[in-house]
C-alpha cells in the first residue's frame, strides 16, 4: 500500500527569530514637565505620562501584530543618575507595559547605555546557546536633557563601534527643546538624532512597532528599509 504522507508532528518547531529591542528611557525629574525640576521652559503637558502612554501603545501594537509579537523581545531600562532594569528581555505576551516613575536626579546617559549594551550582549549569548536565530538588536535611546556626568564619553564610542560593525541599530530621540542632540549623536554615527515634535511619543512608538513588524517578516538578506517618510509626522529637525 502506498502512503505518501508524513506526520506533521515530525516537523521541527524551531523557535521564531527574535529582534531584541532595548528601550533606554530618561526618567529624570525634568520629565515631569515642571521647570522647577529642570524641564525646558515652554514644555506643555507631562512628558513622563505621555511616554508611559506611548510605551503602553507600543506593547499593544506588538501584541496585535501576528509576526511581531513572536519576534520582538523588549527590555526597558529607566535612567536618571542611576539606571534600573524595569523589564528584562521577553516577548510581549499578556503582560502590561510597566508604568515608569520619575526617579533620581541627573542624566547619566552613558552608564545607562553601557548597561543596555551589556544586556543586549547577554541576550545574544543566550540566543546562541539555545539555538535561537536573531536579527540585529535595536537600542531606543531617549532623553529630554543633557548629560550630567561624563559617562557618555566612554559609552558613545562603544555604541558607535557596534553601529559601524552593523551589530546594533540606534534610535536616538530627543524630547522637547531641552534635549541635547549633540550628546545623543555620540551614540549614533549613522542616523541623526531626532527631536520629538511636542510629546508625540505615541506616534513614535506606532512607527517603531510597524518597523518591528516589517523586520520580523523579512527574509534572509532582504534589506530592511524603515519608512522614514513616516518619521516626518512626529519629528522636527
Amino acid at each position, binding site marked *: 500500500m*502506498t502512503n505518501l504522507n508524513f506526520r506533521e508532528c*515530525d*516537523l521541527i518547531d*524551531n523557535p521564531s527569530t527574535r529582534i531584541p529591542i532595548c528601550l533606554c528611557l530618561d526618567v529624570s525629574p525634568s520629565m515631569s514637565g515642571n521647570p522647577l525640576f529642570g524641564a525646558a521652559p515652554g514644555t506643555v503637558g507631562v512628558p513622563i505620562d505621555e511616554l508611559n502612554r506611548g510605551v503602553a501603545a507600543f506593547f499593544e501594537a506588538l501584541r496585535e501584530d501576528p509576526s511581531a509579537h513572536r519576534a520582538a523581545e523588549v527590555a526597558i531600562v529607566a535612567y536618571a543618575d542611576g539606571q534600573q532594569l524595569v523589564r528584562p528581555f521577553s516577548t510581549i505576551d499578556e503582560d502590561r507595559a510597566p508604568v515608569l516613575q520619575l526617579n533620581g536626579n541627573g542624566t547619566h546617559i552613558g552608564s545607562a547605555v553601557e548597561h543596555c549594551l551589556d544586556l543586549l550582549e547577554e541576550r545574544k549569548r543566550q540566543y546562541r546557546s539555545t539555538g*535561537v536565530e536573531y536579527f540585529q538588536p535595536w537600542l531606543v535611546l531617549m532623553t529630554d536633557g543633557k548629560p550630567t556626568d561624563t559617562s557618555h564619553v566612554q559609552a558613545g564610542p562603544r555604541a558607535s563601534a557596534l553601529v559601524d560593525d552593523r551589530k546594533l541599530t540606534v534610535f536616538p530621540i530627543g524630547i522637547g527643546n531641552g534635549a541635547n542632540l549633540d550628546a545623543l549623536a555620540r551614540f549614533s554615527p549613522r542616523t541623526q538624532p531626532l527631536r520629538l515634535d511636542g510629546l508625540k511619543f505615541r506616534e513614535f512608538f506606532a512607527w517603531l512597532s510597524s518597523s518591528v513588524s516589517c523586520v520580523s*517578516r523579512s527574509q*534572509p*538578506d*532582504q534589506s530592511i528599509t524603515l519608512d522614514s517618510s513616516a518619521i516626518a509626522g512626529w519629528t522636527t529637525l
Partner: protein
Amino acid sequence: MNTIADISASNAAHGVPRSITEGCVSLQAPGWSVGAVAVRGTGHVRAGLPCQDAFRVTATPDGFAACLCDGAGSAENSELGAAAVADAVCEFLAGHPGVAPESQEVLKIARAAADSAAARHGGELASYACTVLAVLVDRNQLTTIHLGDGVIVAGVAGRPAVLSAPDRGEYANTTYFVTDTRAEQHLRIQFLRLNDTVRSVVLMTDGPQRVLLQSRTGKVSQVVEGVAGWHDQAGHAVATDALETTVSQKIAPRAQDDCSLIVARRIWAEDEVIPAICPSCAAWATVGRRRNGRVSYHCPECESAFQKKRKRPSSAPPGASTR
C-alpha cells in the same frame, strides 16, 4: 506554474533541460530516482514577489547532477540569477564526473552565469545574488557544493543526517551569495564516498530548512527520509507530485519563504540485492547467495547469517533497472 508536460515540451524545444523556478520535475537516473520541487513562499505570494528559488537536475551516465539556488530576497533580479547559476553549475558538474572541482572553478562558472544573465536582462551583478547547493553522484562518489544557507542531507541507514550545514552570518537575515566578494571563503566542497548504507540525498533551501532542521542541535526531521522513501513506494513522478502538494500545503505555510527541495533516492536494479540490516547487530550486511526468491545475507560485523525474501516494491517505476 510549470507542469512536467511544459518542462518536457520546453526541454524538447531546447534540446537540453533548463532550470525550473517554480514547479516540479522528476527523472530516473542510473541507480537513482530523483525529484525536485520549488514552491513559492506564502510571504512571497502576499508581497507579490516571484519564487526566487531555482533548480536543475540532470541524469549522467553514472548517476546525476543537481543544483538548487536561492535568490536573495533583497536582490531584484535574484530569480534570474538563481536560474542561470543552477543551470550552469549543474551542467558543469554533469560534464566533469569523477573529479573534485576546485572552489575557484565553481565560483567562476557561477559568476559567469550571473554575469551573462545581467548582460541579457540588465542591472547590477549584485542584483543577481543567490546561494548554491549542488551535488554530483557518480557511481559511489558524491560531491557536495554549498555556499550560504540551506542544507544538504544524506539518509544513512534510514536516518537523515546533515552532510553540509547552513552557513550564515550572525543575523537571521544575512547569508552568503555567489556575487559576494568573499564568496570563495564560504564555498564548501566535499568529495565523499557513498557506501550502501546511504539511500538518499536531499538538498533544500532555507525555507524548508526552518521546519526540517533543528537549528540548535543540527537534528534533521525524520520527514526528510520519509519523503525520500516515497520513491520506493511509487514512481519518481508520483512521489514528486506528492512532494509538491505536501510542500505547498504543509511546509510552505510554516516557512513563509520559498520552499525548494531536491530529493534523490537510491534504487536497485532487478538483479541487484537491496542491502539489509543485520538483525543481530544492526550493521549493514552484505549479500551471500540468492535462491528461490530468498537472499542469504552475511554480516561482516558479527559473522551471523540471515535470510530475507527477495522483494522489490511492486510499484517500482518501469525502467528502474537501468544499471
